[in-house]
């Protein structure tokens, strides 16, 4: 966190100054480790074993926050008697189809509340193969999967098939000794962490977990976060100040680009993209949710309002609000699948918008082969990035695999405007929208991306204006008139924000609860409804922090409804009283008859704590006054996920796809549902690679380097690509400090200067010693600070829920000296492939 989010880390340092204990678990010793109270070096790819052992520690020592667990989680729910755990099946859950490498999740369901059946196959939405292909777990960026009604429960948590008991059995083998064996963390060190976390959780104290892509870039990435969620829910650390699981995201608006997604599988506000097989019309699309409980029960209103925002007067009840204008998914259209389609020649045109996959995506060669096989490529950036110059200086030109004169890709480099040259909002890592104002005009041909897409849309609409082909109706009918400003004809970002916020019969909307399913409201992103409440740009609010409460509700605007901590009803006990004076946040004021506190309550403001829903109620009306997790169908935090995940209802440790070690926990070595991308340019490592390799960032650079390697002040601070190795590994391989090393996988070989450092430590996993190679991944051939791209040696294999690639744990070999050039490089890699 100190490494990649230094200014956010000021709050950690402040907490430390007030007595908080800082624990850092990481494969490498970073700037964060340097100021932490406890540093725990861990083998890359083994965190579920570590977190699972924490869960086990909590359960075996009775350290759970019992009252919170019983009231606010699904610990008491009784699971279907057909359910079989990894304990029973040696690493698999019930329902596994070995041929399809997919689960039928039906046996994971609650007893008494079978999984909801929509218009299509029930397994599609809530697990299983299609769910996996279309990454529908991502919909749960704003709430869990669908289950209907309430399960049978045992509030004593003693029933052998209740979630609590299943959890106990599942994690029983995740012992401190197992941590030592799997993670390379001494049992004593593990216990130090376990004791600290449990001692610091409960009524009066909370523990926060922070993570970044070190947890997500795995074939089990989603289950990493799930394990953390289970731990935090057991300890009562969700929805409370000082608690939570905080994602530290690396790009200015990566949260915003998920909320308003430039992602294949979702529409704005986490509404899924319709599926060809399942969603024949609007009715079947919303049917699954129409009967739902929790706030997702209003999905029809969110969807209709979105369709009204896009197709305006053309969207009517009579034509399903133009639902049919939406393209349909049939499978995985994620970025890595798309690259394979580019290589196959099906995908011919590509836009790269502030992104540099030739350096930043796994298996750079795969990326560049895709780029080289396009008809045309549009790159929009500030600087001349590698993804725009692959045809003249990509590594494949040097090896002779590609020749400039034979690459047919037409490339347009369209200079982009910087943040100082345009109005707009970023959504930061805590869901906070902050407006930035334009300070100067962009130079020369540089234009904002808003300008580019708006004017491109105008040109395309002009070309299709007289078409009679029904395929062009969505373009012809699209609402596409924004206020143009200044000599450049810049579309007004404020007018786009107004469309995102939404309008109703009485003008701008102020809350998503106003959205209707009858076409009377329009809203471009329901979770952002209210960002222009009262017609005022709430994201541009800048009341100084020192002039308001510590929650600072008058700075910017957080979705949803300006709530700063979501699920904050859980900061009060079931009766609505603060768990403790010290951790007071939101509570029930019985005299006023409403929820009050420092934040906007994430709860219906006047629903009393003792509210009991009526039989058959739907949406939020089906949730009781003590059900804080309002986006969940049952209002509970899910320790056990009866639906919604492709790879199991509970996290289990599997080895990374490329690991030199066998799984000590189960016979099942890897995630049985992991997503492979089989292609000759994406071979997976065999046994010839004895070391673990992981990639990461440095404070001085930014991701793929386009915004840092081009700047003198940053380039001089980290001038060159290097690898980090321990003195022991250096000795074993003959590597010299500041000399060169070649790092090899079955994809490629790269060279790096050697940094021999005690910060890299060989770990002892019982009898074995783990050597890890650390690679910062910022570099490429362009800019002021240059070097090989670490991502070139990574293969592409992904998490089955969200298609995020396993970039944080793989295998490699490392040898002294510079890498061979030209054909000799290919020969070296081929030799390693032959060896296995």
């Amino acid at each position, binding site marked *: 966190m100190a490494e*990649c989010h230094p*200014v956010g880390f000021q709050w950690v340092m402040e907490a430390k100054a007030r007595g908080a204990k800082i624990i850092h678990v990481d494969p490498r010793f970073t700037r964060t480790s340097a100021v932490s109270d406890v540093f725990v070096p861990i083998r890359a790819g083994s965190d579920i074993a570590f977190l699972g052992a924490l869960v086990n520690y909590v359960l075996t020592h009775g350290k759970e926050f019992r009252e919170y667990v019983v009231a606010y989680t699904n610990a008491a729910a009784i699971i279907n008697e057909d359910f079989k755990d990894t304990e029973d099946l040696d690493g698999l859950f019930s329902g596994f189809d070995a041929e399809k490498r997919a689960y039928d999740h039906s046996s994971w369901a609650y007893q008494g509340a079978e999984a909801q059946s929509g218009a299509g196959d029930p397994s599609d939405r809530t697990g299983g193969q299609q769910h996996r292909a279309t990454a529908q777990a991502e919909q749960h960026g704003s709430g869990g999967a669908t289950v209907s009604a309430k399960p049978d429960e045992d509030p004593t948590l003693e029933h052998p098939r209740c979630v609590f008991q299943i959890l106990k059995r599942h994690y029983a083998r995740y012992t401190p000794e197992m941590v030592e064996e799997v993670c390379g963390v001494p049992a004593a060190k593990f216990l130090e962490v376990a004791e600290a976390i449990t001692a610091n959780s409960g009524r009066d104290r909370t523990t926060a977990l922070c993570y970044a892509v070190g947890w997500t*870039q795995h074939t089990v990435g989603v289950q990493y976060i799930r394990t953390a969620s289970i731990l935090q829910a057991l300890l009562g650390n969700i929805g409370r100040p000082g608690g939570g699981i905080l994602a*530290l995201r*690396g*790009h*200015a608006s*990566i949260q915003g*680009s998920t909320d*308003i*997604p*430039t992602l*294949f599988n979702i529409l704005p506000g986490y509404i899924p993209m319709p599926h060809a097989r399942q969603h024949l019309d609007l009715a079947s699309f919303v049917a699954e949710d129409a009967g739902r409980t929790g706030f997702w029960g209003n999905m029809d209103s969110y969807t209709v309002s979105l369709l009204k925002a*896009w197709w305006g007067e053309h969207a009517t009840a009579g034509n399903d609000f133009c639902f049919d204008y939406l*393209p*349909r998914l049939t499978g995985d259209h994620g*970025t890595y699948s798309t690259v394979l389609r580019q290589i196959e020649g099906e*995908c*011919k*045109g590509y*836009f790269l918008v502030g*992104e540099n996959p030739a350096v*930043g*995506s*796994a298996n750079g060669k795969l990326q560049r082969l895709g780029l080289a096989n396009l008809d045309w490529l*549009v790159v929009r950036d500030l600087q001349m990035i590698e993804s725009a110059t692959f045809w*003249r200086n990509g590594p494949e030109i040097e090896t002779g695999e590609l020749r*400039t004169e034979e690459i047919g890709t037409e490339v*347009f*480099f*369209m200079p982009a405007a910087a943040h*100082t*040259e345009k109005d707009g*909002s*970023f959504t*930061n*890592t805590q869901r906070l*929208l902050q407006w*930035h104002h334009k300070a100067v*005009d962009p*130079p*020369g041909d540089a*234009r904002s991306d*808003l300008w580019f*897409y708006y004017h*491109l*849309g105008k040109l395309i609409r002009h*070309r299709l204006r007289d078409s009679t082909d029904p*395929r062009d109706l969505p373009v012809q009918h699209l609402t596409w008139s924004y206020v143009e400003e200044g000599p450049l004809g810049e579309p007004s970002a404020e007018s*786009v924000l107004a469309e995102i916020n939404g309008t109703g019969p009485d003008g701008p909307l102020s809350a998503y609860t106003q959205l209707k399913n009858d076409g009377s409201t329009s809203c*471009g*992103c329901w979770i*952002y409804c209210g960002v222009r409440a009262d017609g005022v740009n709430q994201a541009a609010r*800048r009341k*100084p*922090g020192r002039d308001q409460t510590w929650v600072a509700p008058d700075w910017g605007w957080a979705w949803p409804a300006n709530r700063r901590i979501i699920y904050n009803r859980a900061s009060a006990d079931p009766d609505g009283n603060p768990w403790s004076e010290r951790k007071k946040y939101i509570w029930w004021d019985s005299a006023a008859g409403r929820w009050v506190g420092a934040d906007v309550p994430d709860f219906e403001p006047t629903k009393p704590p003792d509210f009991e829903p009526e039989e058959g109620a739907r949406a939020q009306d089906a949730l009781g006054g003590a059900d804080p997790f309002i986006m969940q169908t049952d209002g509970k935090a899910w320790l056990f996920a009866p639906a919604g995940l492709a790879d199991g209802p509970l996290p289990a440790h599997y080895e990374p796809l490329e690991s030199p070690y066998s799984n000590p926990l189960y016979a099942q070595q890897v995630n049985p549902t992991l997503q492979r991308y089989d292609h000759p340019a994406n071979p997976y490592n065999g046994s010839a690679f004895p070391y673990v390799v992981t990639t990461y960032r440095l*404070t001085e650079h930014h991701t793929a380097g386009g915004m*840092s390697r081009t700047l*003198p002040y*940053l380039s001089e601070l980290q001038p060159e690509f290097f690898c980090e190795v321990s003195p022991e590994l250096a000795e074993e391989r003959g590597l010299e400090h500041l000399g060169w090393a070649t790092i090899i996988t079955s994809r490629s070989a790269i060279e790096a200067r050697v940094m021999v450092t005690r910060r890299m430590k060989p770990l002892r996993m019982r009898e074995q010693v783990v050597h890890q190679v650390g690679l910062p991944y910022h570099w490429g051939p362009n800019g002021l600070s240059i070097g090989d791209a670490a991502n070139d040696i990574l293969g592409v294999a992904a998490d089955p829920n969200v298609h995020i690639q396993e970039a944080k744990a793989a295998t490699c070999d490392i040898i002294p000296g510079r890498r061979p050039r030209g054909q000799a490089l290919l020969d070296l890699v081929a030799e390693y492939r032959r060896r296995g």
Partner: protein
Amino acid sequence: MRQWLSSWPVIRQVTGDDPWGRGNAVRSAATERTAPRTAEADSVTRSICPYCAVGCGQQVFVKDGRVTQIEGDPDSPISRGRLCPKGSASKQLVTSPSRVTQVLYRRPYGTEWEQLDLDTAMEMIADRVVEARNEAWQQQDAEGRTLRRTLGIASLGGATLDNEENYLMKKLYTALGAVQIENQARI
């Protein structure tokens, strides 16, 4: 004349409070004029750091239409006026001489960049989008179910852009039937 003489360092040294010539006596004309360039800015614009997702507040100082300084916004309850090295390099980011400010074009099988007029480039891109869209159009699947999409066009990027930009991208692409729309959040 007297004033000119009395501004002479030696005179100041002998007649003033700084006989050793280490302080006031040696202040130069430029030193006397010292003022921070932020005080001379024509405008100060509130902005947000474009690097990571912490969302630190920035103040952008502009003089004669040029950015002269970017520093932390002390009002921000998130950053309290502080910036990391990348945020502190923001001025260099936006004023970088290596920024590409002209449309560049590489023709198929070309070996060099060529310059291209912005309007021409926009028209060419629009033509190509329409063509690629139509060539790879899929109206129905093999079983006659609606697809209404094209796999001819893909897009990657958005995490460094504004919400409003992502919105127009997703809206336009979806209307065109382009589904292979992705950004760094997948990575």
